[in-house]
């Protein structure tokens, strides 16, 4: 444990609530949905105890929750919300609006299968399907990372003026209880100063938001968003490094696990990374040159870093816990486009692994490595249960 931190046994959702407490938000509009609800429950409890001073609003739907987030954020308030699956899908219209209006909202999404059929299982399609909405997207592997990422996310969102979505997998992260270092308030205050937005309600500025624009202005607003998006990778690097200096836990857009001299690199996101770590350790013990590349920052995708990391690696297996009908795994598609034209690009296999929350044990990952690493990749989706 580092510095003046406090070790607690926390689920991923409760870790998020503590991250929110430490970030001192002003407004928190949330509508309940399984398996996000424990975030709302814990925030309610912390607020009742006087540990969170924010206005906690429980609107009549997620669409209303996100609407309230946008207007609250544009007054200059620090805003947090949380949702999952259907709730995120219902927000879709406002997700575009939030990024277009440059609202610095931070949201935690608990990755859960979308209906139909109904299910409550870990699957990342809900948030991956929002990849074009203009939100920064981070994927978290553990409760500790979720807490740490919430605090870092405010700094990134408020500097870039782009909303941030942190996703963690249903149950595997949201409900799994682990020891978590909860940093002190003074440490977090040092890392994350109060939000001073240049977009705010201020008589000196006198602004109206969201007015219809002509083509040229609309085009300009997208270019501005793009210019800010280009800064995000560095902001995530800075935030992760500064956080590491204070807590001993550093983060970046990508994480490399035993990839030195690897003949095979497994690329994945979220809780699957924990399973892959175990599998990598076992395979390394047997002399297999395998490593893992964890994608933490999915939007904007760290394309340059991915190209640098994978050039010269003979083979990469992308494990997707999601299925985009008609194409395959979303991360696989993204990797293919990121590596396009790269000299020495790996043979890139896209494997649909654990779609719908199906359990994938480390032993299964070992099998996949031996089954696919010598093969030529196929074009269509590959289902491996």
């Amino acid at each position, binding site marked *: 444990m580092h510095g003046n931190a406090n070790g607690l046994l926390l689920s991923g959702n409760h870790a998020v609530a503590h991250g929110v407490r430490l970030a001192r938000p002003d407004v928190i509009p949330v*509508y*309940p*949905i*399984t398996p996000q*609800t424990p975030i*709302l*429950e814990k925030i*309610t*409890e912390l607020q*009742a105890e006087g540990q969170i001073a924010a206005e906690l609003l*429980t609107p*009549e*739907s997620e669409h209303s929750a996100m609407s309230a987030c946008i207007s609250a954020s544009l007054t200059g308030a620090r805003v947090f919300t949380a949702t999952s699956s*259907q709730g995120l899908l219902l927000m879709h219209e406002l997700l575009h609006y939030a990024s277009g209006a440059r609202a610095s909202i931070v949201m935690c999404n608990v990755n859960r299968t979308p*209906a139909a059929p*109904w299910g409550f299982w870990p699957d990342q399609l809900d948030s991956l399907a929002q990849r074009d909405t203009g939100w920064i997207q981070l994927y978290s592997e553990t409760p500790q990372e979720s807490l740490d990422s919430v605090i870092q996310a405010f700094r990134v969102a408020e500097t870039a003026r782009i909303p941030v979505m942190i996703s963690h997998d249903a149950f595997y992260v949201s409900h799994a209880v682990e020891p978590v270092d909860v940093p002190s308030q003074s440490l977090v205050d040092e890392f994350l100063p109060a939000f001073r937005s240049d977009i705010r309600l201020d008589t000196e500025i006198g602004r109206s938001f969201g007015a219809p624009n002509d083509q040229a202005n609309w085009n300009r607003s997208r270019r501005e968003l793009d210019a800010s998006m280009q800064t995000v990778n560095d902001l995530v690097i800075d935030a992760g490094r500064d956080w590491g200096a204070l807590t001993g836990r550093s983060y970046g857009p990508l994480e490399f696990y035993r990839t030195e001299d690897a003949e095979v690199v497994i690329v994945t996101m979220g809780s699957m990374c924990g399973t892959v770590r175990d599998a990598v350790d076992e395979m390394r013990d047997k002399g297999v040159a395998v490593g893992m590349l964890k994608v933490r920052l999915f939007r904007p995708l760290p394309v340059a870093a991915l190209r640098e990391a994978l050039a010269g690696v003979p083979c990469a297996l992308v494990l997707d816990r999601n299925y985009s009908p008609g194409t395959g795994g979303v991360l696989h598609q993204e990797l293919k486009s990121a590596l396009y034209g790269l000299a020495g690009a790996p043979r890139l296999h896209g494997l649909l692994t654990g779609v719908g929350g199906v359990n994938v044990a480390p032993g299964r990952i070992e099998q996949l490595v031996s089954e696919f690493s010598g093969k030529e990749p196929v074009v269509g989706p590959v289902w491996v249960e």
Partner: protein
Amino acid sequence: MTAHTAPAFKASDYKSDIKPVWCPGCGDYHVLLSVTRALAELGRRPEDVACISGIGCSSRIPAYVNCYGFHGVHGRSLPIGTGLKVARPDLTVLVAGGDGDGFSIGGNHFQHACRRNIDITYIVMDNRVYGMTKGQPSPTTEPDWDSALSPGGTGLSPFHPLVIALASGANFVARTFSGDPNRTTEVLVEAIKHPGFSFVQILSPCVTFRPDERGWKDVVHTAAVEETDDPARAARRIMTDDGFNIGILYRGNRAPYKLTGREATSDTDQLGEMFAI
């Protein structure tokens, strides 16, 4: 009783073989019983009935009723029910769900369904709480209901669903109590028979997150006055009653939404032809 006068259907004919997963003592069990009894009494064939819901504990009901069923998305049961009814006007369409589903996320649809006055019956199992997501207050929750998830109460004025239904144009408005299945069955029979949009609020305790609602059986009472066809009178009564007044409170004469367009049929031979590939 001779054989040919025996009822064509029994309530059990409308029970599916799926075992409900509601908590023991949940009021929704008796709603299910009343729905199946009402359908038996009306003698509708199971294939002439469709039950549509949103999401929530109460919204699980279509799976438990032996008829066409559709478990939709949260808050959208009424638009789904409306689409079904315009495509197949011959079907008896029951739309069912909870107070969160119907008055929070689906609140706008509730008003527009009343206004459209299409011939469907909307059953809301009102337990004044979001049961499925473990106990958050809903639009019908009392402002001072103190719980871990609403410390000190919401302080918000509760919704008056029956009055909103009247103001929005519903043609039949009633309130019943799940713990009185005989009465609930009678009311459902009348609601289904009445043309246009019928709204039945069934007080249905959530024994898990609102154990206090077990006490409802002692406070519900029959409406002291006769039903009326005057919406203003009905509204005044409902606004001033104690919320536990049971009975048919309004039976209106508004012409239901007239379905134009395609002829519908329940003749299976004709349907077979229509859908032949």
